[in-house]
Structures are given as C-alpha cells and as structure tokens.
C-alpha cells in the first residue's frame, strides 16, 4: 500500500512523456500524489496542505535541473521543504543546572513508551559519564513502578524504590518525586529521570497533577513521548500537552515498526519543539538521537538511503567513491575492500544503525528483521582481525575459503569458525546490497555527484 513517493511521482510523469517537466498543466496530479503520500505517512492534514501549497510555488518557480528527472526534482524540493518544517538541527538535552540533579520529566499518553524510554535514556546518560537516578511516580497503572525498577536493573541505574505514605494519589506522586530528588542528591546523582503515568490531555485532574510536578521539580527537560504510529491525533495531543505543560522536546517511539512517522512533523509543527530522540527497539540500547533528514527520508519512502549517501559523501573522498563504484559494477568488491569499507563505515557510526536506516521494502527487505545481521562495535574489531588473518588470495576470492581455511583463520584471529562463517555471510550480503545500490541510476548519480544537498546540510547546519 505504501508506495514510495518517487514511485508515485514517476507514475504521474510517465503519463506526461515528452513533456517531462513541471508545468501549470501537470502540477495538479503531482501535488495530489504528494498530498496522498504525506497523508498516508500520517502527517496532519493541515500541515500537508501547507507543505503542498509551498511546494506548488517552489516547483513552478524551479529551474529545470538537467541532472534530475522531474520526479526526482519534486522529491528534492519536497525534501527540503519538509526539512524546513522539521528544522534542520539535531537537538541536544539541556542538563545544565546550578543545583543538581538536573531533572528530566517524561510525559505522554497511555502506552506511548515512557517507561522504556526512561530506562533507555538512563543507559545512554550513563554511557556518557552521567550518574542518572530513576523514579516512577506512576501510582495508577498496576505494576508500573515494578516495571521501571526491573528495567533500571537492566540499565544498571539506581532507582527510587520507596513507597509513598499518602493515600491520596496526587500527594503520593509529589511525595515520591520529592523523596527521589532528595535521594538523588544524597547519592551524588546528577540527573533525575522521572517516569509518570500515561494520561489523556483531556484529563484535568491528571494534567493538573503534572503541572504540580513541574512546579515542584522545575525540570530541565520535559519530554513528550509519542508513539511513531500515531495518526492525525498526534497534532492535537501534542498541542494540548504543550499548551498545558510547555514541554521542551519530544521522543518518538516504536520506530522499529514500519510506520512512516509523519507524527514527527505534526508534533513539531504544532508545538515548535524539537524531536530529540527516536526509540527503535525493545532493548535498552534502542535509543537514537533524532536526525530530521532521516525521518524525512522515511516519510518520503526512500528509507534513509539518501542520508546514508550523504553521510558517505562526507566520509569517503570522491576518488575512493569513484573506485568503489567501478569495483561494485565489475563485481570485484573484495574482502579487502570490505575491510576498507568497514573502516570508512566506522567513521559514519554504528554499522547496525546504518543497516537499520535501509528501507524496509524492496531489495533491502532481506536486511531487516530476522535476516538482518546484528553487528556491534566490538564485533567490528573482530571482523578486522578476521580479515587480517586471511591470505591476499583469500581476500580477493572469498570462494576459496573452505572449511580448513576457516579453521586456520579463526585460530589466527582469535575468533571462532562460527564468527568467520558469519562474516563471510555478511560480506556476501553486503556485495549483493551494493550491487543493488549501483544498479539504481538515481542512487548512483547521488553517490557520485558531490554537489548535493547533503553538503549544504553539513555547511548550513
């Protein structure tokens, strides 16, 4: 059902053979294709109308770029337009305070993912050298506080376990928050993460409780946690939470599903607040800093290939890219090149998240879900060691690596045969992936052409 926008636009333009460029005559169909794609991506209809209106003006005024097809050109304008709406900055947490701990208060509807996000954030902060402390003030949902306590254990973060004395829920909530802060100070923790009960923005009593919490804790950050699968209501709920609480940022969860995440645009548009993080797994390491360009790619249905390429552009120099391109086409992408690529890729970020950025459709589907290779950073080091233990011939022609050679390589690199097997499997998959990559003229052009919006992005920040 979810065709990529480029596919849809290509269909529109196919009917206009010969004409081949955007004009008053054909803009209607083009804009309608864009409108439907954005609505399917759950962008709020009022935001869609605005974007489509702006797109009309820009598309008509646009010089025809020889290097891009009309469909590609529309996608490019739209992409820039969406980035405009979303803001190009990657927002950071503000944890500065003269009176530690800095407080992060979570807020959101029921079931949006606050508790898991809390534990993920604690883990992330710990890795950054902070000393976080956790508390759940959800006295409503059964076993909510137990849930956070268990997750805190997994995140190796201390959690406030004390029970409230008060029978009145609001008093109990405030009491817990107060006691947890005191305890955080005693333990010398510098960040207090406060998990709250899910609530509807219509619920006056619970929203008032939230305001009291805010007043009591004077939080550095109030993060609105929203489900990436949210539809048109995202604008309303975010708008109401913001009106009543003035949150400082949002977290979009469950991004490991296949929703387009148009809610990100709605939330940002209505509140003006940045999306700060994305949740992308049930595991506690599944929290990523939000990159506007990545969600835009996802909304447009191109996965994050463009981001990948843009990031590749800044890390791989043009010469290398040209050589790689040649190799990919001639099928001479050796294990040695693979090792070089791995080194390049490590400059880009964790390989696992690069894999995750691939679209979940088409030729890339195999890289998702169960088939997707899970790679951690330590593993990358081992992969290098494995390749280093191969002979030059083996690196050039992986087919010769038989059972006994695998054993030798495993011994030489201090790894197991299983790991050698896995690497070879990944290598073969990667070859396949890059071949698909180079088979797409659009993507290849983007990869080779260095004067691309990705560059502007870096420079314009």
């Amino acid at each position, binding site marked *: 059902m979810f065709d990529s926008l480029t596919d849809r636009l290509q269909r529109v333009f196919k009917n206009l053979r010969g004409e081949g460029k955007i004009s008053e005559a054909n803009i209607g169909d083009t804009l309608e294709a864009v409108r439907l794609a954005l609505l399917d991506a759950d962008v709020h209809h009022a935001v869609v109308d605005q974007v489509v209106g702006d797109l009309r003006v820009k598309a008509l005024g646009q010089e025809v770029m020889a290097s891009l097809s009309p469909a590609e050109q529309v996608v490019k304008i739209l992409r820039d337009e969406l980035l405009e709406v979303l803001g190009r900055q990657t927002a950071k947490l503000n944890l500065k305070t003269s009176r530690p701990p800095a407080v992060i208060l979570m807020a959101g509807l029921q079931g949006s993912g606050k508790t898991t996000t809390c534990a993920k954030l604690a883990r992330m902060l710990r890795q950054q050298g902070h000393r976080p402390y956790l508390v759940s003030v959800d006295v409503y949902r059964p076993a909510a506080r137990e849930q956070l306590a268990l997750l805190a254990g997994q995140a190796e973060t201390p959690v406030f376990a004390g029970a409230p004395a008060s029978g009145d829920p609001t008093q109990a909530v405030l009491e817990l928050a107060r006691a947890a802060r005191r305890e955080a100070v005693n333990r010398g923790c510098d960040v207090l993460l406060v998990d709250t009960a899910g609530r509807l923005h219509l619920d006056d009593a619970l929203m008032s409780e939230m305001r009291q919490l805010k007043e009591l804790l004077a939080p550095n950050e109030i993060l609105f946690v929203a489900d990436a699968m949210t539809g*048109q209501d995202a604008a309303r709920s975010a708008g109401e939470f913001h009106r009543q609480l003035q949150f400082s940022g949002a977290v979009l969860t469950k991004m490991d599903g296949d929703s387009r995440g148009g809610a990100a645009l709605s939330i940002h548009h209505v509140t003006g607040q940045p999306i700060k993080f994305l949740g992308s797994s049930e595991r506690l390491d599944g929290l990523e800093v939000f990159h506007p360009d990545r969600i835009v790619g996802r909304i447009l249905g191109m996965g994050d290939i463009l981001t990948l390429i843009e990031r590749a552009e800044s890390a791989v120099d043009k010469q290398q890219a040209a050589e790689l391109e040649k190799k990919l086409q001639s099928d001479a992408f050796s294990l040695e090149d693979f090792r070089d690529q791995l080194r390049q890729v490590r400059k880009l970020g964790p390989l696992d998240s690069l894999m995750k950025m691939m679209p979940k459709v088409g030729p890339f589907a195999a890289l998702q879900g169960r088939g997707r290779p899970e790679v951690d950073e330590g593993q990358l080091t081992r992969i290098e060691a494995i390749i280093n233990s191969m002979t030059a011939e083996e690196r050039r022609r992986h087919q010769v690596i038989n059972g006994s050679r695998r054993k030798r390589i495993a011994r030489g690199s201090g790894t197991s045969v299983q790991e050698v097997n896995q690497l070879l499997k990944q290598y073969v998959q990667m070859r396949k992936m890059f071949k698909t990559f180079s088979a797409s003229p659009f993507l290849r052009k983007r990869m080779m052409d260095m004067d691309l919006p990705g560059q502007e992005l870096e420079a314009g920040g």
Partner: protein
Amino acid sequence: MIQTLFGPEKKAGFLERLQNKMAGAVEKTRASLVSRVDEILRGKTEISPETLRELETALIAADVGAATAREIIAHLRQAAAAEPHMDAETARQLLQNELIQCLKVAVPPVENAAPPRVIMLVGVNGAGKTTTLGKLTQRYRDEGKTVILCAADTFRAAAGEQLQAWAERTGTEMIHQKPGADPSAVIFDALTAAKARGTDCVLIDTAGRLHTKDNLMQELAKMRRTAGRVIAGAPHEIYLVLDATTGQNGLQQARQFTAAAGITGVIVTKLDGTARGGIVIAIARELKLPVCYAGVGEKLDDLIPFQAETFVHSLFGGTAAFL
C-alpha cells in the same frame, strides 16, 4: 461473537457512555458535541465540490485514511451529481450509511463448542491488551462465568505482576510461569488446567510485539498452534487490540497479525481520548474484520460492545479547530 454468546449488553448504551465520557472531559473547552459533519453541512442546499472536499478532510482527520476517504466521498459525489439539489440531511445520511456499511462485517456464527472457550489478545506494544483483558474478565465474571487468566507475556518487565493485579481485582485465578519462560508453555498449562476443571473461559495475555518482527510473529503462530493442540478449535477468538490513536499503520498491523495469528476481531482502545479511531473503518472494509469492543477508560467497566452506528456518530464529534 462473545456478547451474543454471553447474553445481551446490560449496561448503559454505547453512545450514551461514550458521550458521557467525552462530555465530561471536554465540557470546559468544547461546550457542545456538534458533529463536524453537521457543521460542514449546516445550511447547505447543494453539495458543492468544496463541501465534498471538507467532508473528505473530516474523514481524514478521523484517521479513516486518504484512500478510503476518497472512495467514500466519490460515492457521495456520484449521488450528489444524480440529485443536484441534495439537502444536507440526505448527504449526511448517505455518508453515515456508507461508513456503517464498511463496519458491518458478517461474523460467522459461533458454534456451541464445549467450554473452555479460549480468547487471546494480541497487538503492538502499549495498545492496551492487558487492561482490556482485565475488563473482559470482569464482563465474564459479571455474567457468572468462571475464568482463568493466562500470563503469556513472559517478556515485558513486570507484565506478570500487572496481570496479577487485574486477577486480584476481578477475583480470578492467573496461571503463569517464570519471566522469560516460553509463552506457549504457559498457554499449555493454562488450557490443560481449564480443561481439567471445566472452566468457562481462558483469557490469554500476550506480549506486545510489532508486526514487522518475523520471529515474534512466528512465536504468536506457535502459541496459537499450542492452544489448538490442547483444545480443538482454540483459540476461539483472537482479538487484535488497537489503540484509537493509531494512524495508517493500523492497516498494516491488522494485515500482519491476521497473517500470523488469524485475527477474528478487533478491539479498539482509548476511545475516551480525542482520537477517533477511524482506521478501523479501513480495516473492517479491507480485511473484513469485525470490530467487537471499544475501550473507553482505565477502569474495570470501561469496555463496551462496539456498535457501528454509534461509532460513526462519534467519529465526527468534537469541533475544536486547533490548528
């Protein structure tokens, strides 16, 4: 369906309760529950293209989806073309009927199999499965049925404790194993016990899972097979629990869960919020899945049998223009 099996609805009607809920919540900001559709149509003596466009937007705003909304409006457009001076009331009726038709899915009659009747709730993370299970338990208990709760969410932290709280609230026994246990094994235990004791129904809580995760979907298929091995024909009902705030992704959820687990019906939760849950129209229409219950709060009795007419009525409720 269950409600026919276990007797008619005794509590206050769907619309009444939904409206009470909504009216209570919105009294301050939104004085009345004027329907958006009525507002668009008010005073119209002709159904113009602009009016049709506005109606389409109202459907989209309710998460019905652009494709479905366009088709529904296309039908209305045809009708309006055939009848140049269609009045607002006729147009409203046509639109409502069209939507109700989408939701009227023929449900195969329930065979009167010997108890226990096995009901499994599935859905994405945080949809409201456990809470709904608690509410369903209360309904059955009210009807004098004996119930066993099966804690087959062995994955999420404190999932067992959460279900235990509902078991205590409803005075029901819960069968569970250690966290991390094979969910199919818990199902095996629960069904075996229910069979031995002649319990009326078993309600199975499952871990939230995204429909994109193949391994988790296969786990679900296995749970279903296990149930069928202990009791022929079980699970008799597999409900997809769907959060009313869900956008267009809901359709994909319904497709994937149906493929893996054979969904028999949908329960839409959190209708007490401002989300209208229009995606169930697309789901019912495309997948021919009936919507069986609506969740309208977090308390034990906040679950009501779904009725298409009243749902469609409420679909356009709430008028605040917030953008």
